[in-house]
């Protein structure tokens, strides 16, 4: 793991157990470079979701340290963690990404509203630009229930990018989408983040989705088994399949 820039996410010997017996993460150390698109892969129960929860301040590590944007978060209280998520992390989930009672514009502005402030003029311009760019300009007054799955994911991406967080976590962002919407959402995620210099950490079990990433980290039984760059979808598939066969 050699990177010229300082990592946006750093895990040092992180261990996480559930109920004292299940080890979801077993002494994992990982650096994720700024501006890089990383896919976290692995079979069910491999610990990939736990890795994301711990790295994003959604759950705490039992041992080891986690750094987000050079800040140690392991010992932060709930309030500080919430503030960190609000200001420095963007989230895109598999489904149910949006608050059903808020319209598209309000959902995109949500991180600012939760922070108790209005977006500045510059930030608002950026939000408007994102909304246009993601093809949502004629949808700003619509409620999530009036949008297709792909459109909902685009709104979630706009919200995740709105505050310009250094890192965006995406948990199976295409899991509930059809092929066309999947390709569209992945393309947007990759292009926008590349242009704006965001880091993306995407948890997925879909090799085709992982193929858009710069780097693929494969987990199994709570440990990192593979960590490579520039793989094709086929190569990723066989790597994951090999792991599942041996498990």
């Amino acid at each position: 793991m050699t990177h010229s820039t300082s990592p946006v996410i750093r895990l040092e010997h992180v261990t996480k157990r559930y109920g004292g017996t299940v080890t979801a993460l077993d002494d994992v150390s990982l650096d994720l470079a700024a501006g890089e698109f990383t896919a976290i892969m692995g079979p069910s129960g491999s610990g990939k979701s736990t890795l994301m929860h711990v790295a994003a301040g959604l759950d705490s590590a039992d041992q080891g340290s986690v750094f987000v944007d050079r800040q140690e978060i392991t010992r932060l209280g709930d309030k500080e963690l919430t503030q960190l998520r609000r200001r420095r992390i963007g989230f895109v989930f598999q489904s149910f990404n949006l608050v059903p009672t808020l319209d598209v514009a309000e959902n995109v502005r949500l991180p600012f509203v939760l922070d108790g402030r209005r977006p500045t003029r510059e930030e608002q311009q950026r939000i408007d630009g994102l909304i246009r760019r993601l093809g949502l300009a004629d949808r700003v007054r619509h409620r999530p229930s009036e949008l297709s799955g792909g459109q909902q994911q685009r709104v979630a991406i706009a919200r995740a990018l709105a505050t310009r967080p250094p890192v965006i976590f995406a948990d199976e962002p295409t899991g509930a989408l059809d092929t066309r919407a999947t390709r569209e959402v992945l393309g947007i995620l990759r292009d926008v983040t590349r242009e704006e210099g965001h880091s993306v950490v995407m948890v997925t079990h879909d090799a085709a989705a992982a193929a858009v990433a710069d780097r693929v980290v494969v987990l199994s039984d709570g440990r990192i088994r593979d960590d490579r760059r520039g793989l094709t979808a086929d190569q990723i598939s066989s790597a994951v399949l090999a792991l599942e066969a041996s498990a």
Partner: protein
Amino acid sequence: MNTLREFSSTVLVAALGSAFGAVMLICSSVFAGWATASGLGQVAEVQGLLDFISYVFLGLALYVAAIVTANTCSTVIAGRTRVLALQRLLGAPAGRLRRAITGTGLLVGAVGALIGTAVAAGIGLTGVAVLQDRGTLPEGEYAVLAPYLLVPAIAVVLTTTAAFFVGSRRVLTVRPLEALSSTVEARPEDLRGSRLRSVTAVLLVVVGAAVLLLGVVTSAGSTGAVLVTMAGGFLSFTGVTVGAALFVPPVLALVGRIGAGNPAVLLSGRNALRAPGRSSRATMGLVIGVTLLVTFGVLLAMYQQRIVPALAEEAGVPEETFAAITAIVTFLSGFSAVIAAVGVVNALALGVLQRRREIGLLRAVGFTGAQARTMIVVEAVQMVVTALVLGTALGVLYGWAGTVSLFGGLVDAPLTPALSAGTVLLVVVGGLLIAVLASLGPVRRVTRVAPTEALAVA
């Protein structure tokens, strides 16, 4: 048994209703026993009047209870849409699903009535024993455990079953395909309601208001004016209840705007309007309670502050008797508000239960635990404030109209409404107490929602 737990608050509503009715009838019967033992005359007439008053207030309480129960039932069903859709998909006829839910209502009503009647009988037996022991009641026949106890019990079973039947109407509209749909949010509630309902509501309000006005205007010349006014009040209030979904949401929306710059308050306000019909009905239960309390409060206050001074030479009711009457009337009219409070608790608790993922999502993207708690408390406060505004406005109108129709002929000066500080205090403090108590449980539950719940796939 699981079903009973899910509807435990509905069992409570049924128990409260039947206990309330049974206690009133026991009091009436004990009073008759006391009057007989003391050798007073006209016992049957007085008991008949007391029973009549008991049935009127029991009817009001059961009406509120039915609204609360039907609302809880439809909320639970809304949360079960997917399971019901799956059952429909696998071939269960909608009618049978609905009958099963109505059957649950019968069970819930029976269990509640049993508990309520038992509690009331216990209170009655203990009360009579204590009063006889202290010598307040003379030796005599006091019928506590008598067949009349069956009346409120049966009424509760019937209204609860009927409320479940009405509340489960939505089962008929669940489409089997909803089991397969990937959208988590249920399709939005039909806001328009039926046109017939709206027309009926507006018609009732307009005609009722006109009749009410007629009663007020003719009060100077006729002693029967109060009956006209009462008819007007009853008609217009039925209109308000029927059209709750028409009248309550605008007030909820207005109240929801207060302080909406705060994200927690903004989300509470939006949430109250997510299922406008449901929030309207939950609020309406409280409106009925507040209206009753304020109507009688205004009647009593105007009698004491406006009528008695104007008729100085004729002695009014003695102070002590007046205080006793006030206390009894307040208890009788306020009991509906207690039942309605259970409805507010239900609306909030089920709201949190059915929104766990949404709350998890909010927590993930930066809603603090404190903000989530604020959101729930504010939801309760918004409902209570809306009910206070509507109920007070209606109560002052009805109380004023009633007093003018009763006494307008005796007093020359125009009568203005009056309200005692006690009533205002009771309504405001009681309302806020309801809001705080109603949000205690749901607040505890919302704190336990982890941000990771937003990521759950199911």
